[in-house]
């Protein structure tokens, strides 16, 4: 059940009415209903994995309670270790077992020894990386005594499985989201309207830009060896906006739906393609993950407390782990490494101050374009099935051996490409404007919303509804 499906529309309407009409006076019943709805939402995809999310929630609930009771430091450390081992163990098994097994075998083969280690037919549970990180952040924060352990198990289970952000974030911190489950929620007209607005904006990004771009991107990446440099460049441009439209669109819809239920989620994107350097980009792209790694990996590793070179290593570790978090493939690791290496010069120079919002000027336009191009090259590794394919893609881009133009190979492809370009232009115009206004959230006027809805209706790829890319992570 994806956000842009008819099934989800029915689900949302039913849940919304029961939540606000029948249960509005009872917080516990509201939470219980959200928990049931969230499990139903998740179970729609594969009910068997509900046990996994329930087990993960139960582990951290119990560990959290014990952490609250214990003052003994070694006991507390042990409890934290249990939680981390269980959570990362599940994540590691489901997401990384085959990767490690294969690389283990390959490594031995490289040195002339044959090792037999069979790979398993493991189905990756949707959103496991997201809810695992969310529930881990709770335990770590309780351990650090930043928050108190949650006594209300229904509220806690609902916090872990909250359906708007369960499968692709934003990865919420317990300190921000969990208290919202514990206090009475009242329907707020203005918040609900802002929710609808941001949902529409998210749907536009997902269905008009990402889903249309996917058709062209798939065609180009699947047959890159015959494509011309122009076509390969368009492949990178469209994938950059496909993944942005897909993921930021999802985040916007998640934030909007949460508002309909009286919840406030953190912002996950802030106009990343207007960044004038890589450092800025990573402060604006997938903010909830970047800040998670900063708080729970970079700082525990020592952060910048042990000197410049030590912190540089920490930065590279964070980028590598971040890449690996995305998927069990060397392509993601290389992607993380590329971004880390691009970040290094900025980190060493420290001369550039990152801006929260970009004021587009002629002077910073080349920097923005240069940053976009660098990010785009990184996306080639992110999108390609293997490092070899990514390298070949870039070689073909620069050597120009192909002549095919997938994006204009038929009237249909040309039309879809045109829609993508119009969508990209709209997104850039809107983001430049809001960036100038120093507003992190796009809040369109009534007239603009009607226009956006019509554009959505007549430009969206309704026949090509693609699951959100980040579901696989």
């Amino acid at each position, binding site marked *: 059940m994806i956000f842009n499906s008819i099934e989800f529309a029915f689900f949302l309407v039913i849940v919304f009415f029961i939540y606000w009409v029948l249960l509005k006076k009872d917080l516990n019943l509201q939470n219980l209903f959200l928990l049931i709805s969230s499990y139903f939402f998740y179970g729609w995809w594969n009910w068997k994995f509900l046990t996994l999310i329930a087990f993960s929630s139960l582990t951290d609930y119990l560990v959290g309670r014990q952490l609250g009771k214990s003052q003994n430091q070694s006991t507390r450390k042990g409890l934290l270790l249990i939680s981390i081992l269980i959570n990362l163990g599940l994540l590691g098994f489901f997401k990384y077992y085959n990767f490690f097994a294969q690389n283990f075998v390959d490594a031995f083969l490289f040195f002339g020894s044959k090792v037999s280690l069979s790979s398993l037919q493991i189905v990756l549970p949707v959103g496991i990386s997201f809810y695992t990180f969310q529930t881990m952040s709770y335990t770590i924060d309780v351990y650090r005594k930043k928050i108190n352990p949650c006594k209300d198990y229904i509220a806690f289970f609902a916090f872990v499985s909250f359906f708007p952000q369960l499968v692709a974030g934003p990865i919420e911190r317990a300190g921000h989201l969990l208290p919202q489950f514990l206090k009475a929620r009242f329907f707020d007209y203005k918040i609900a309207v802002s929710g609808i607005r941001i949902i529409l904006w998210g749907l536009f990004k997902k269905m008009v830009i990402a889903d249309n771009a996917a058709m062209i991107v798939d065609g180009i990446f699947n047959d890159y060896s015959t494509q011309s440099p122009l076509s390969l460049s368009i492949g990178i441009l469209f994938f950059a906006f496909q993944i942005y439209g897909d993921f930021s669109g999802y985040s916007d819809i998640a934030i909007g739906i949460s508002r309909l239920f009286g919840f406030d989620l953190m912002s996950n994107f802030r106009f990343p393609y207007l960044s004038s350097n890589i450092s800025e980009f990573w402060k604006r792209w997938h903010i909830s993950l970047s800040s998670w790694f900063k708080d729970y990996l970079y700082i525990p590793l020592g952060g910048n407390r042990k000197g410049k070179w030590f912190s540089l290593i920490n930065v590279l570790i964070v980028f590598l782990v971040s890449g690996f978090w995305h998927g069990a493939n060397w392509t993601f690791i290389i992607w993380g490494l590329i971004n880390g290496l691009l970040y290094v010069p900025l980190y060493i120079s420290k001369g550039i101050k990152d801006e929260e919002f970009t004021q587009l000027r002629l002077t910073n336009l080349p920097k923005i374009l240069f940053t976009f191009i660098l990010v785009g090259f990184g996306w080639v590794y992110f999108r390609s099935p293997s490092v070899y394919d990514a390298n070949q893609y870039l070689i073909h881009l620069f050597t120009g051996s192909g002549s095919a133009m997938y994006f204009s190979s038929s009237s249909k492809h040309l*039309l*879809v490409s045109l*829609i993508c370009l119009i969508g990209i232009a709209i997104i850039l115009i809107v983001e430049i404007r809001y960036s100038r206004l120093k507003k992190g959230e796009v809040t369109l006027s009534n007239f603009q919303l*009607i226009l956006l809805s019509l554009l959505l*209706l007549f430009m969206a790829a309704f026949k090509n509804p693609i699951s959100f890319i980040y579901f696989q992570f």
Partner: protein
Amino acid sequence: MMKKFLIQLSKYFLIIALIANLLSLISNFLLKRSSIFKASFLVNNFDPEQAFDYFIIGSSRGLTSIGSEEIDQKLTTRGINLSQDDTGLPSQLLMAKHFFESGFRASYCILVLDEPDFEHSSMQINDNDYRMAPYLQRDYIYDYFRERERGIIRPYTLGKYVPAVLYSYYNTELFIPSLFTLFRPTYRHRFDQYGNYTYPDSQLNPENESLKFIQVQKKISNTLLYEFEEYLRTRGCQLILYVAPYENRELIIQQEVKAPLINHSSTLLENSYFYDPIHLNEKGKLEASSLLAKELQPLFQK
């Protein structure tokens, strides 16, 4: 608060639905007055008072294997090619109905039958059936879609009453092309003024080689053909079945349907006639049309 929210939501929903339906009706109007698809091309470019001698119906093989222009030159007849690529026999019967229901007449219908339709036809909607959608208000077209649509979203079935559903779902197929016809109403999408289309020479087989054919036993027994034949009979039109050339297949056909059959599956003996294994290029089309005209002459004289 909730009441106000729902009222506002309903208000905006109605405004958007109203504008979307209005735009869809305009889109429908533009497509119906254009020549972009065969259905409207027929209605807008020909006079029903002037009867055709024949019309050609088929898929991409019907569209590109035979040229009505070449046949007309040889037989001094008047024909039109109403074939559409990516269609099956049910869509072709629908096009035949559209021909007659639009007031046109013809003595013969040359049905270019494809192998997948020899014994039975899929009940699914074909990829290019949307080209008939501008005439969804007509019962025979609506019934065609209604009988075939499955699933929760049924754009054709709903589209008769709420055009926005159809035109938004098929936005790249219908809505955006309709905007294009606003500027070029006479544009035809991949066919000429007679409804024919020609593929270029194949880039795969530059060398001219003699072909080797594999003999394949086939039976034509599709029950839909009886319906097709009967429908045409009530309109005073005779069905002629035609099997267009293949690059490497010789079909030995056992026929259960009474309509005359012209089997040219293995008549073109060189690969220079072909664009790909099932489609002809211009040279192939001229040759196939010439051979077909010879076969049609005695049939037309009857």
